[in-house]
């Protein structure tokens, strides 16, 4: 464990040295996601300015939901972006074989290989939204609330990563996993808004099947004092379980790969 943390640090340093070689690219990449987020936020701002509330949720309350999902997504974006590009830049190019002749775990190697700076923009937007909304809503940053938020965001990030890992594993059968990943990943956009605006079936989907709701709606509800029962505490449990399942699926895919070489 300690060895992997140290190694991750060295990979990260290596990545930043590359990014410093291309400073302008770094700035454009990191800020491009901010612009993309502003488009969605302007919509909420314009619409919410004309109505008192969205299904009982005020402007700042919606921003909190939106901010939490953005933070969780940014963790996935920064630390696990290679799950998107595994087919194109690793498996089909043969670079994945390199990971298999090195004395470290291939999944670790894949994730550590590229920290994605574009995610920084998402992180900043998410953090700003959470800071702004909690301040406006008078949610105090007590140690308990801070810890709860941290756990919620990390669990949310883990849910994103686990689902992407499962879909990325399809690469070992179909050599390009982006379409599969894209379809599952897109459903997270439901969780940018309070789940109560949706049909019951969609709520169940976003809670129990593709639990992106656990990254935004339920933690936000808890912080706002809205009754969601045990679901307020479920994120870390589900995240952990999902990670274990995802890693199993990944190992299964890896065995298939060593059986076929793709």
């Amino acid at each position, binding site marked *: 464990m300690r*060895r992997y943390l*140290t*190694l991750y640090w*060295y*990979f990260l340093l*290596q990545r930043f*040295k*590359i990014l410093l*070689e*291309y400073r302008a690219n770094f700035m454009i990449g990191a800020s491009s996601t901010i612009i993309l987020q502003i488009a969605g936020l302007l919509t909420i701002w314009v619409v919410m300015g004309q109505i008192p509330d969205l299904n009982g949720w005020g402007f700042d309350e919606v921003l909190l939901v939106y901010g939490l999902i953005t933070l969780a997504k940014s963790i996935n974006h920064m630390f696990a972006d290679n799950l998107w590009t595994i087919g194109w830049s690793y498996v089909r*190019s*043969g*670079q994945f*074989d*390199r990971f*298999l*002749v*090195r*004395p*470290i775990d291939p999944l670790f190697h894949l994730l550590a290989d590229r920290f994605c700076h574009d995610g920084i923009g998402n992180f900043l937007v998410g953090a700003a939204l959470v800071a702004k909304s909690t301040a406006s809503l008078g949610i105090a940053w007590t140690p308990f609330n801070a810890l709860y938020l941290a756990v919620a965001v990390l669990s949310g990030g883990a849910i994103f990563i686990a689902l992407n890992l499962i879909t990325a594993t399809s690469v070992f059968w179909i050599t390009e996993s982006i379409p599969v990943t894209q379809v599952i990943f897109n459903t997270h956009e439901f969780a940018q808004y309070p789940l109560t605006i949706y049909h019951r079936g969609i709520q169940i989907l976003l809670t129990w099947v593709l639990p992106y709701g656990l990254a935004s709606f339920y933690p936000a509800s808890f912080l706002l004092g809205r009754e969601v029962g045990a679901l307020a505490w479920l994120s870390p449990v589900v995240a952990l379980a999902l990670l274990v399942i995802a890693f199993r699926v990944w190992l299964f895919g890896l*065995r298939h790969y*060593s*059986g*076929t*070489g793709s």
Partner: protein
Amino acid sequence: MPIIQAENLSKVFRIPHKDPGVAGAFKAVLRPRFEDKVAVNGISFSVEPGEIVGYIGVNGAGKSTTIKMLTGILMPTRGNVQVLGRDPHRQRVANARDIGVVFGQRSQLWWDLAFIESLNLVAKIYEVPPARYKQLLDQFAETLELGELLRVPIRNMSLGQKMRAELAATLIHAPRIVYLDEPTIGLDLIVKERIREFIKQQNRAAGTTVILTTHDLGDIEELCPRVIIIDAGALIYDGPISTIKARFGKYREITFETLGDASACAVPPGAEIVGAEPRKLTLRFDRTLTTASQVAQAVMNAIEVKDFSLAEPDLASVIKQIYGGALREPVTP
């Protein structure tokens, strides 16, 4: 005690069979059918520590599949492989510490960074102790003339410089076995020489075992006392390079430039036609059956010869003959 031992090693791929078109795609999903493709078929060999072995075959013969099984990337379908006493697939990580792999033109170096940055990180991945790392670095800096290259980003290197850098990165953890896939491809002669020299030196000084796949027969002639030839997944030759040369070296080729029509000439006994053009005739003859002067005499008696030349077959033509079916049964050295 062999360092690599392969017994009856086979790899069969199951390839999904797809009919063309949308209907075919649907069928492939609903009722998938598979075809078996035998990439490697019952290969056995063993390699002793410190050997340099040339592993050759045409594209698609099963070379890289074998290498992938030896390095632990692929699991054999049948048979058994032991590298340093381990199963390279099941004990992949332990095996990885002891081997180094150069994958053709696929680099393991960070394109945008100074070479030394790549080396540092590779050393960290392999947990090379700092003192040992420094010692090896100094040694490579000298033997591969890397000194001035350490600060150069890979993207600014020439092909030859890149390969030197690649070799250094592959050997920086002092692996006991290295697998080199086409290490000299695309390089000019001087750089090739230098790289071969380095491989030889590494083998002699550190006792590193080398498995080399290449299309460059110069590599084989200079580096490999022993070659393993595979064709269509099966081993067709395993033995010293000298046996092959001796066996096929009994043939000579003689080429005549003629004034008259060469195709009219009768073939002298003990010789056969390799190529015939209106003004050019190439014959191959068996030295144990006839002599160059007898063949030349016979031809000159038949037609007017302007010039002629005699060639000793190089390994390239030997290999060509072997692939062409001259070695239907394995030769025992």
